[in-house]
């Protein structure tokens, strides 16, 4: 199911007056497409994801799914940057949470969650609590939780943003591997240009606050990809191109805050 954002505006009403977060954002994501969004920090990327997930309502504009209005929203699973796991649930219960909410009985949801935990290499940690795991392991659980409930669309908000560089590389490859197996529509927000190019079929580059779409770039890399894909010549060109755009936006946002 393809979905389309049409002229989305989001304005937060705060005590200090309205703060525009998103301005006239329009784009379309095809079924099973992996879309990455990069932008300077504070550009409303998270807001955009929450709008797509239906956790927030746009101030104006609309999101349609195969042309239908948003009440027909297909199942989507959000993966947050950090702290998205429930500290009071074991790894297994966390991973099975989506199924539990859908009323899947205990035995079945544990079986399905267990299989996925094993797939992300955490089979031995099923009965641990999140505080007993490293941040990288927690993010794997969060990803398992999202995949286990078999959503139509995955919304990922810098899921590897708080990981060290090496762990991030490992998890990027892991994500690509799982995604190859279970093709989902993905909207992946990141501030890491290389990550966006490595993972995405397309990269949207956003402007600083209020966030808008500066450019929509197709990534001409074949699938399946691995980490070496980033070394190809035309990819380096794209990387610099995106950086040229972002550099501007980051400068602007620095001046605004300074």
């Amino acid at each position, binding site marked *: 199911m393809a979905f389309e954002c049409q002229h989305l505006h989001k304005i937060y009403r705060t005590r200090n007056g309205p703060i525009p977060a998103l301005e006239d954002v329009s784009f379309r994501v095809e079924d099973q497409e992996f879309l990455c969004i990069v932008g300077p920090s504070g550009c409303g990327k998270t807001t955009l994801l929450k709008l797509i997930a239906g956790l927030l309502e746009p101030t104006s504009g609309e999101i349609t799914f195969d042309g239908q209005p948003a009440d027909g929203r297909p199942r989507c699973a*959000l993966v*947050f940057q950090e*702290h*998205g796991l*429930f500290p*009071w*649930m074991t790894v297994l219960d966390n991973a099975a949470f989506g199924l539990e909410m859908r009323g899947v009985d205990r035995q079945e949801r544990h079986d399905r969650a267990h299989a996925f935990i094993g797939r992300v290499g955490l089979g031995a940690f099923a009965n641990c609590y999140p*505080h007993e795991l490293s941040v990288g392991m927690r993010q794997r659980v969060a990803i398992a939780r999202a995949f286990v409930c078999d959503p139509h669309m995955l919304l990922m908000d810098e899921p590897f943003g708080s990981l060290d560089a090496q762990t991030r590389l490992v998890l990027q490859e892991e994500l690509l591997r799982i995604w190859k197996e279970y093709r989902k529509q993905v909207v992946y927000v990141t501030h890491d240009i290389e990550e966006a190019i490595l993972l995405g079929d397309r990269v949207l580059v956003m402007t600083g606050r209020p966030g808008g779409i500066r450019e929509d770039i197709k990534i001409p890399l074949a699938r399946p990809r691995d980490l070496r894909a980033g070394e190809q010549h035309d990819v380096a060109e794209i990387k610099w191109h995106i950086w040229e755009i972002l550099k501007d936006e980051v400068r602007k946002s620095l001046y605004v805050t300074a």
Partner: protein
Amino acid sequence: MTAFLAVLVLAVWEWGSRTGRISTLFFPPPSATVRALRRLLSTGRLGENLGATLYRVFVGFGLGAAPGLVLGLVSGWSRQLRAVVDPFIAAAHPIPKVAILPLVMIILGIGESSKLAVVAIACFFPMLINAMAAVREIPPIYFEVAENYGADLRRVFSRVVAPATLPLAMSGVRLSLNTALVLTLAVELVAAQKGLGAMMWLAWETLRTADLYATLTVTAILGIGFNLIVQALERYLIPWHAD
């Protein structure tokens, strides 16, 4: 080291009061306290009074903490209710609860119910305040995750609100239980025939200092015991809390 110091103090105390260097009226030797404790235990006086105190502590705690918990959870959740409840807390919480005993006795009479009421009122506030804070401090991300995965209100409560508030709610239990003990003793000191507080008062009136120390010892053990029980309960109920 601590144990050694304690034994040393007790030994010096024993020696000092036996040799007349310390007044036995104020500081009877620890052995006299032990004898008094044995006597109170064997005559059944201690059991009877301890029972009366425990009854007041637990019934008062239950009557006060349970509604405190419920109201705290609900008003932590609802901004409108909080706006109503907050001023009442601000006004009523700082009043020392012993001070309302005379008023409560005028209303409820001098029987057991007025004592339970005062203990209950005192337990109500720490529980209410902790439960309220517990709900308000739940990070919004947990609600977002729950909503994203399609949790209904009932499940949001059972799978998010209840476990997320448990640690602070348990501190509320600990505070309330300690308050219950303090208030029960205070009420018994001034207005009861039975109970550890009443025993202490009688011991003072008859200048039986050893009895006083014996009762104090039991009270101290009670306080320590409550905290150990709550701690054990916390370890059992909140296994995800890393120490």
